[in-house]
C-alpha cells in the first residue's frame, strides 16, 4: 500500500526525471530574446511598430545608421556620411556612394537603382507607407549618375533631418526582388507624386504592391534584404527565427568603427511570451538569454533572486524618451498660467521617481533629453514639489476657498468655478494611476480637487488628440534623428498633431521654424535655449523624468554594453565566450 505522501513524492520524482535536457548553453550558437508581442509586419517601408525595428535591423541595411554607442551617424551601405552641399536658401544636395563590396544575397552588387526604387516605392500609391511618406516629403529630386551605377544624390529641402530622411530612415530593398517587372524603376519622382493614378495601370504594379504590403509571415512573403541575417521561420504568436547568412559581405569588413557589421550568433530566436511572470520563470531556467522593458517592481524582485543573480547581468539603459503631464491650455481653469505653475509645484517628482519607477530616470527641464548635452538648458532647474509656493501662486491668482469645503473657487467670466480638474490616463497602467493618486493627494492639500479618469488606450489617444482633457499623463519616445519640435510645440500641431496642450505663440513658432532649417550647432543651441525657456515659463507640459529600459542579459555573453538605441542591446553583437572565433 502506497500512502498519499509517498505517491506525491513518486510523482514529483517522475516529473523531475522527464524534465527536458538542460539547454546546451549557447553551444549551438543561439541567442534567445524575449518579446511580449510579435511585430505587425517586417517590411521596413510599410510596418510601423517598435517590435519590428529590432528584427529589421538584422534583416536589412540602411545607407547610414546611428552608432550604437556614440550615436553619431556612421556609414553602413554608403561609403561615407555625405557633407550637405548647399544649393540655395531652401535646398541642399546630399550625395551618397554605395560600398563596392555591398551585395545582395544572389551576388549582385547593391546599386543606386535599389536606393531609388526604395524611395519611389514608399511614395507610390497603394503602398501602406503613410508614415514614411511624411519623412520623405522633403526629397525634391533623385539624381543618378550615368557612369557610376553606385552613386546617388538627393536634392532636398534645407531641413535639419535631411541626412536622416535620405540616409538613415529607410532600409534599402532589392529592386530585383520586389519589382522585377520594373513597374516604377523608369519613373521620375515627380510623376509618382503628381500622377499617382497612372502608376496603377502599369504592368507589374499590382504584384509589386502586394509584395511590399505583405506582412511577411508566410514563407513566400518573408522579407528579403541585405542584412547579415535572414528570416528562416515565423511561427505566428510563437517565435521568429533569424539565421545568419553564410559568407555575408560584411564579414570581410572591420567591425570596430561600425558595430552593425558584427554578427556573432548563428541563430537569433525571438520568443513571444505575453505574460511577464512566465517569461521571468523561463529566464530563470535560462531558456531566455535577454529580457527587456522590465517594470521597476519586477526588476527589483529579479535582483533579489539568487539563481538569476548568478547567471544574469542587470542593465538600466537610458532611453531617448520622457514621461510628462500635459495641461490643456485653452481650458477655462488651466488657461491661467499660475494654475499650471502651481500644478507643476504639486507633482511629487522625487517620490514618483523613487517609489514608482525604481529611481532610474532623470529629471528634465523641457523637451530636450539631458543626454543631448549641447542643447540641454542646464541653467534652468526643473519644477520641484513645493506646497507653499503652489498655495501662494493660487492665492495670488485669486483662487480662494471661500465656503470652507477645502476646494478653492474663483469667478470666471461671471460664473463661480471650483478648482477641480480631471486627470486622464490609459487604463491598465498601474504606474500612471499611482502618479494620479499622488497628485490627487498633494493637490488636495493645496485646495485643488483632482478626479482620476482612466480610458482604454485607443480612446485615451483619441481624447488626447481631440483635446478632450484637462490634465493628461503620457510618454514620448524619440528616434535618434535630430529632434524637430514642430510636431510637439508648433501652434499648427495643436489641431491634429501632437501638441496636445495647444501651446504656441508667434515667437515660439518662429523659433521652431528656425530650428528646422539651421544647420549650425551654435545657432541651434541659442534657439533651443530660448525655446526651453519659453516652455518652462508657460508650462504647457510638466516633464516628469526620462525613460529607461531595464534589461537582464545572460552573463555568458560577458560584459555587454547597453545602448540608448532601442532595444538597448544589439543581439547580433552578443557573443558567448565559449563560441569559436568566427
Amino acid at each position, binding site marked *: 500500500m502506497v500512502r498519499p505522501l509517498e505517491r506525491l513524492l513518486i510523482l*514529483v520524482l517522475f*516529473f523531475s526525471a*522527464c*524534465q*527536458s535536457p538542460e*539547454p546546451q548553453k549557447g553551444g549551438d550558437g543561439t541567442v534567445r530574446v524575449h518579446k511580449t*508581442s510579435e511585430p*505587425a509586419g517586417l517590411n521596413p517601408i510599410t510596418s*510601423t*511598430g*517598435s517590435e519590428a525595428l529590432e528584427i529589421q535591423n538584422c534583416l536589412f541595411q540602411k545607407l547610414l545608421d546611428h552608432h550604437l554607442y556614440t550615436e553619431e551617424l556612421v556609414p553602413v551601405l554608403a561609403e561615407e556620411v555625405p557633407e550637405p552641399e548647399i544649393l540655395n536658401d531652401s535646398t541642399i544636395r546630399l550625395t551618397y556612394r554605395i560600398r563596392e563590396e555591398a551585395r545582395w544575397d544572389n551576388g549582385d552588387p547593391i546599386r543606386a537603382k535599389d536606393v531609388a526604387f526604395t524611395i519611389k516605392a514608399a511614395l507610390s*500609391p497603394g503602398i*501602406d507607407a*503613410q*508614415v514614411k*511618406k*511624411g519623412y520623405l*516629403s522633403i526629397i525634391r529630386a533623385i539624381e543618378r549618375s550615368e557612369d557610376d551605377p553606385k552613386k546617388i544624390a538627393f536634392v532636398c529641402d534645407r531641413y535639419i533631418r535631411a541626412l536622416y530622411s535620405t540616409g538613415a530612415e529607410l532600409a534599402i530593398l532589392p529592386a530585383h526582388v520586389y519589382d522585377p517587372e520594373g513597374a516604377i524603376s523608369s519613373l521620375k519622382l515627380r510623376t509618382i507624386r503628381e500622377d499617382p493614378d497612372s502608376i496603377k495601370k502599369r504592368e507589374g504594379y499590382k504584384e509589386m504592391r502586394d509584395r511590399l*504590403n*505583405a506582412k511577411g509571415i508566410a514563407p513566400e512573403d518573408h522579407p528579403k534584404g541585405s542584412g547579415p541575417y535572414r528570416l528562416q521561420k515565423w511561427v*505566428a*504568436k*510563437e517565435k521568429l527565427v533569424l539565421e545568419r547568412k553564410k559568407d555575408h559581405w560584411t564579414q570581410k569588413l572591420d567591425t570596430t568603427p561600425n558595430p552593425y557589421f558584427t554578427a556573432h550568433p548563428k541563430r537569433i530566436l525571438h*520568443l*513571444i*511570451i*505575453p*505574460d511577464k*511572470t*512566465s*517569461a521571468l*520563470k*523561463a529566464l*530563470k531556467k535560462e*531558456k531566455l538569454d535577454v529580457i527587456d522593458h522590465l517594470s521597476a517592481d519586477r526588476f527589483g524582485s529579479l535582483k533579489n533572486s539568487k*539563481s538569476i543573480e548568478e547567471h544574469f547581468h542587470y542593465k538600466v539603459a537610458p532611453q531617448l524618451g520622457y514621461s510628462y503631464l500635459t495641461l490643456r491650455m485653452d481650458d477655462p481653469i488651466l488657461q491661467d498660467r499660475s494654475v499650471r505653475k502651481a500644478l507643476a509645484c504639486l507633482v511629487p517628482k522625487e517620490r514618483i521617481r523613487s517609489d514608482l519607477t525604481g529611481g532610474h530616470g532623470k529629471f528634465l527641464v523641457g523637451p530636450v533629453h539631458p543626454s543631448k548635452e549641447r542643447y540641454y538648458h542646464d541653467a534652468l532647474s526643473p519644477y520641484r514639489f513645493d506646497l507653499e509656493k503652489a498655495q501662494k501662486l493660487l492665492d495670488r491668482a485669486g483662487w480662494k476657498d471661500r465656503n470652507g469645503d477645502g476646494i478653492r473657487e474663483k469667478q470666471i467670466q461671471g460664473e463661480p468655478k471650483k478648482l477641480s480638474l480631471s486627470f486622464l490616463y*490609459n487604463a491598465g*497602467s498601474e504606474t*500612471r494611476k499611482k502618479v494620479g493618486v499622488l497628485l490627487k493627494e498633494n493637490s488636495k492639500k493645496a485646495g485643488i480637487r483632482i478626479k482620476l479618469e482612466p480610458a482604454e*488606450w*485607443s*480612446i485615451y489617444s*483619441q481624447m488626447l488628440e481631440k483635446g478632450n482633457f484637462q490634465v493628461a499623463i*503620457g*510618454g*514620448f*519616445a*524619440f*528616434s535618434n534623428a535630430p529632434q524637430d519640435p514642430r*510636431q*510637439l510645440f508648433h*501652434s*499648427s500641431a*495643436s*489641431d*491634429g498633431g*501632437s501638441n496636445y496642450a*495647444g501651446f*504656441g*505663440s508667434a515667437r515660439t513658432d518662429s523659433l521652431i521654424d528656425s530650428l528646422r532649417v539651421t544647420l549650425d550647432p551654435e545657432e541651434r543651441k541659442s534657439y533651443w535655449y530660448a525655446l526651453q525657456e519659453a516652455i518652462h515659463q508657460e508650462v504647457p507640459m510638466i516633464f516628469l523624468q526620462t525613460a529607461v529600459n531595464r534589461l537582464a542579459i545572460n552573463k555568458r555573453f560577458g560584459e555587454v554594453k547597453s545602448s540608448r538605441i532601442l532595444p538597448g542591446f544589439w543581439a547580433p553583437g552578443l557573443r558567448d565566450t565559449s563560441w569559436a572565433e568566427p
Partner: protein
Amino acid sequence: MLRYILQRLLLFVPTFFGISVFVFFLSEQVPGDPVKMQLKGGDPAQGMNSPQQRISDQAYREMRQRMGWDVPPFYFSISDGTIPDTLHRIPDPKKRERVQRLAWEYGTWEQVQAFMKARDRLLQKLKKGTSGKKNDEKIEAKRTLYSFFSPPTPEKISQKLQDLRRILNKGHLWNDHSASFQALEGAFHAMVQNRCEWKRYLPAFHWHGSENRYHNWFFGDRPWFGTSDADKEYAGYGVIRGDLGHSFFQGRPVGKILWDAFSYTFLFGSIAILLIYGGSLLIGVYTSVGRHPLKEGPQTLLLLLYSMPEFWIGTLLITLLADPDLLNLFPAAYTLMEIPEGAPWWQQGLIHLQHMILPLFCFTYGSLAYVSRQLKGGMLDAFRSDHMRSAIARGIPRGSRIWKHALKNALLPIITVFGTLLPYLLSGSVIIESIFSIPGLGRTTYQALMARDYPVIFSMLLFSSLLTMIGTLLSDILYAWADPRIAYRKKEKG
C-alpha cells in the same frame, strides 16, 4: 429524430444571419478608429507615443479606402433629420464629428456645409502666411477657429466671431482677411436664419444599397457568376462564400489565422472535455456510492479550487512549480517547447505532456468541480427513486444498478452543461492562453479586440456563436438518447 435535426440545422441559417447583423451593429458602437490605429501604431504596452509626422488627409483617405471603410456600414441607416445620407463621405472622423454637431444644431445641411467651407478657407488663408510676417494674433485667430465647435450654439459662435473680428483688427490682418471673414459671417447668419431645430426630432431613413461594409463582408462584392473585372479592386467573396477577409494588422487571410490558432485550442479543448467528463464520471459516482468520511475529500478540494479564479491559480502554479528556486517541475511557457531532433515518439509525447499539464489543469479544474457535483446530485436522486428500489428488489447486481440504471438518469443535468462547455473550451480562454503563452483562439481574439482588427473579431464571434448552436443541438440529441421520454416530434393523436 432525423427530421428534428434537419429542422434545427435549417434554423441555424436565420440565427447565424441575425447574429452577424447584431455583431456588426455592436461593432459600430465601439469607440476607436481602426484606420487611425492602423496608420499610427503607438505602443500601448509601454504607453509611449512617438511624435510622428502628421498623417496627411490623402494618406488617411487612401488607407480608409484600402480597408473598405469608405462606404456606409449597412444597407440603410436611420438617424435624426439633420444628418444627410452622404455624411460617411467625409473621410476625417474629426471633421465628420464637427459637421454632425453643427448639423444637429442648425438643421440645414447646405448652410452648414457652406459655413464649414468658409471657415476652412479662412483657416487656410491664415495658415498660408505662416512663413512670412507673423504675429500672435494670427495664432490666436487660428485657435478661435479651432474652438468653434465646443459647443456650436449660435450665441457661442457669434461671440467667437466677434472675438475673431477684434483679433484680426488688432493684428493688422483685417485688410488681407476681411473678405474671407465676411464670407464666414455671412454663412453664419444664413445658417442661423434658416435654422430648423424641429428636424432633430424627425427620424430620417437613408437607403445606401448594396455598396456597404456589411454586404461586402458577409456576401462579398465579387460577382457570383461570370468572370470578375480584372481592373477592379474587390473586397472579397464574403463570409457566406467562405472568405473571411484579411486581417488589418497581420495582412493574412483571417481563415488561416483562425485555423492556426484553432489547432492549439482544439488540442487543449478536446483533451479538457475528455478529462472533465471522464473525471467527473469517476468522482461523481465514487462520491455518491456508500458512506465513508474520506469520500468527500476530492469534491471538497475541487470546490475549494472552483472558488478561485483561473488567472490566480495559473500564476500561482507557475510561480510554485516552474521556478528553479522552488520546485522546478514544469516548463514556464508552452511556446518554449523544444523537441530534440530524432527523439523517439515516447519522448516527444512526454515533452508535450509536460508542457500541457499545467494549462490543462487550469482548463479543467473549475468545470470538473461543477460537473462532478451535478453528477453526484443526479446520482443521489436516482438512488432514491422508485425504479432503483425495484431494481434492488429484482436482484439486479450492484455494478449494473449503478452504471446502467442510475447513471443514465443522472446524466441529464450534465448534458445541459455540455451545451455551454463546448463553446467555452473551443473558443479558447484569454487568460489561460496568455499565462501559459499558448497561441490559441482566446489570445488571438484578445489581440484583435485591442487592435480593433474587425475582420478577425467578426469571424471569431461568428465561430463561437456557431459552436454554441452546435453545442445546444448536440445536448438536445443527447437528451433524447439519455431519456426516451423526451421526444422531439409532435405527439401523434391516438
